[in-house]
């Protein structure tokens, strides 16, 4: 407990309210139990990583919290208010942006078009309201600014089709889009899974920038080194339940893996920060 980051500790000890919290989430798929009564909290200004083996319920947890699936039981609160998202759009309208593993980009469209996909800026006056004309210039400028805010200086031409970008650059576009529109938090699903070493580091830096700009981040990842580099707290899912919440300061990656795989439990592991 001695070496936890001030931010995390402050978030937890002075009773600051979580941005997003869930209590007793249950989701079953026929006989398969996806979530078996999961509690979950995201505090302001933190990067919360969710780790777990395949089928441990990390994706289900996030989907249940962001409207991609509707939980069978349990409640989700956003800024203390109970919310029931029926579809991803509901969560998005409430200020939660998700960067999907597939990135949800249209490859042949350019960066600016993808940044504003589904939320296009329209021309002012009747050209926009009646003829629904796009404000190409406004979107390019705004897209360029969003990319610059995240320190992505290598992409200058917002008219470049996304399919001509590298994997990391595409990821950058998707993260910049989420950061530009989110007002509460952003969720990143395996953002580094398909990336090389250098690009992974760039994405991790972006995640830190997003957090430092005031948006809390939920990071779903398999990659233990990445998680320990960037997360403030780590929520471990195992067999549809939360097996514990640790921090990179109190636990080692191998301890995290041990809890994740059931080789040990949080109670048996020194440095427990939960109980």
């Amino acid at each position: 407990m001695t070496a936890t980051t001030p931010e995390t500790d402050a978030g937890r000890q002075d009773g600051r309210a979580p941005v997003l919290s869930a209590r007793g989430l249950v989701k079953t798929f026929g006989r398969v139990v996806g979530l078996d009564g999961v509690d979950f909290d995201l505090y302001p200004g933190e990067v919360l990583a969710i780790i777990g083996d395949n089928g441990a319920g990390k994706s289900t947890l996030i989907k249940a919290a962001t409207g991609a699936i509707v939980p069978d039981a349990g409640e989700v609160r956003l800024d203390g208010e109970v919310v029931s998202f029926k579809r991803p759009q509901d969560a998005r309208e409430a200020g939660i942006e998700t960067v999907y593993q597939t990135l949800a980009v249209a490859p042949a469209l350019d960066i600016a078009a993808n940044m504003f996909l589904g939320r296009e800026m329209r021309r002012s006056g009747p050209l926009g309201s009646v003829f629904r004309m796009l404000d190409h210039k406004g979107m390019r400028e705004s897209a360029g600014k969003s990319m610059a805010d995240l320190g992505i200086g290598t992409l200058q031409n917002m008219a470049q089709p996304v399919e001509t970008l590298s994997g990391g650059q595409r990821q950058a576009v998707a993260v910049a889009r989420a950061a530009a529109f989110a007002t509460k938090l952003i969720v990143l699903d395996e953002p580094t899974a398909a990336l090389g070493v250098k690009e992974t580091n760039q994405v991790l830096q972006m995640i830190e920038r997003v957090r430092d700009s005031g948006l809390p981040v939920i990071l779903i990842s398999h990659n233990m080194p990445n998680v320990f580099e960037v997360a403030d707290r780590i929520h471990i899912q195992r067999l549809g339940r939360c097996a514990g919440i640790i921090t990179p300061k109190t636990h080692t990656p191998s301890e995290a893996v041990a809890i994740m795989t059931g080789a040990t439990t949080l109670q048996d592991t020194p440095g427990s920060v939960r109980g």
Partner: protein
Amino acid sequence: MSTTSPATPGAETPAPPANTAAEQFAKRRRSPAQRVQHVLHAYPAISPLLVLVVSFLVFTYLNPNFGTLRTQSLILQQVAVVAALAVGQTLIILTAGIDLSVGAIAILAMLFSAKLSADGGLPGPLAVLVGIAVGTAAGAINGLLVTRLRLPPFIVTLGTLSVFTAMALLYSGGQSVQAGAMPDLMVWTGEIVNLGGLRITTGVFMVVLLYVVIGFVLKQTTWGRHLYAVGNDAESARLVGISVNRVLLSVYTIAGLIYGITAWILIGRAGAASPNAAADANLESITAVVIGGTSLFGGRGALLGTLLGALIVGYFRTGLSLAGVDDQWRVLSIGLLVIIAVSIDQWIRKVRA
């Protein structure tokens, strides 16, 4: 742009030196073929434009009559109907769909408006509107089958091709309606306008207008943008909050509306409403779209290419016939063009950073 300059190898990116083999591979210089690939990727209308210009020069060389305004006017009149249908076809192919029922819808719409005005005494403006309404409704039926029953567009329109064709024949009893029996407005689209030697019909003007309006809508409005997004990746479009089914339904419906307008142009062009008028139009409209560089896989292409594609088909028909070549050479060469166009599309879709 991240285009690399061959004069300064290794200086193309300001980023630190590559530290993995893959990154070094990514920083390799582009070969000439790759540069061509990138240019075609950015401007897919270049290849059909090139084909059009070269075929114009070759056909004029083979027979100087080809280059005359008179011949060019005739070609424009000939391609007008297919070019108009290809507008709707382009919209549908951009969503990664296909419409095999284009010609059938146009014929159905044409026969309804022709017979109602000739036999039913419907005034010209109303008859034209009925034709457009029939086309729109037929398009909407395609759209509903694609979105509600989630059937592949190929199957839906293969079915409605037969259904609409049979309906048209049953309704008309297989009989044509001659121009004289219809109000003047119905054949107004066949009226010649003389533009300083270029004799084109009002129907051709309407086709040009169609291209301008739909081309504008595709590039400048949210609807056009969403249409491209759906064609690119429907799942991504859904995730960003675009109502994919609504976009698809609107695309098929608007395509139907365009076919309804084309029915009017077709009456003027043929000088009659015949159930056999646009028999080849189904495949020719797809040919025009594909030669024009629009990808059959959706999300990629532009209306300008389709216009060039329709003109290329017209150039080959008239050009080869003026050159005194057997018509089967036209069929053969158009077939080759389609295969080449799709190969080029496959190639430029593989473009990478």
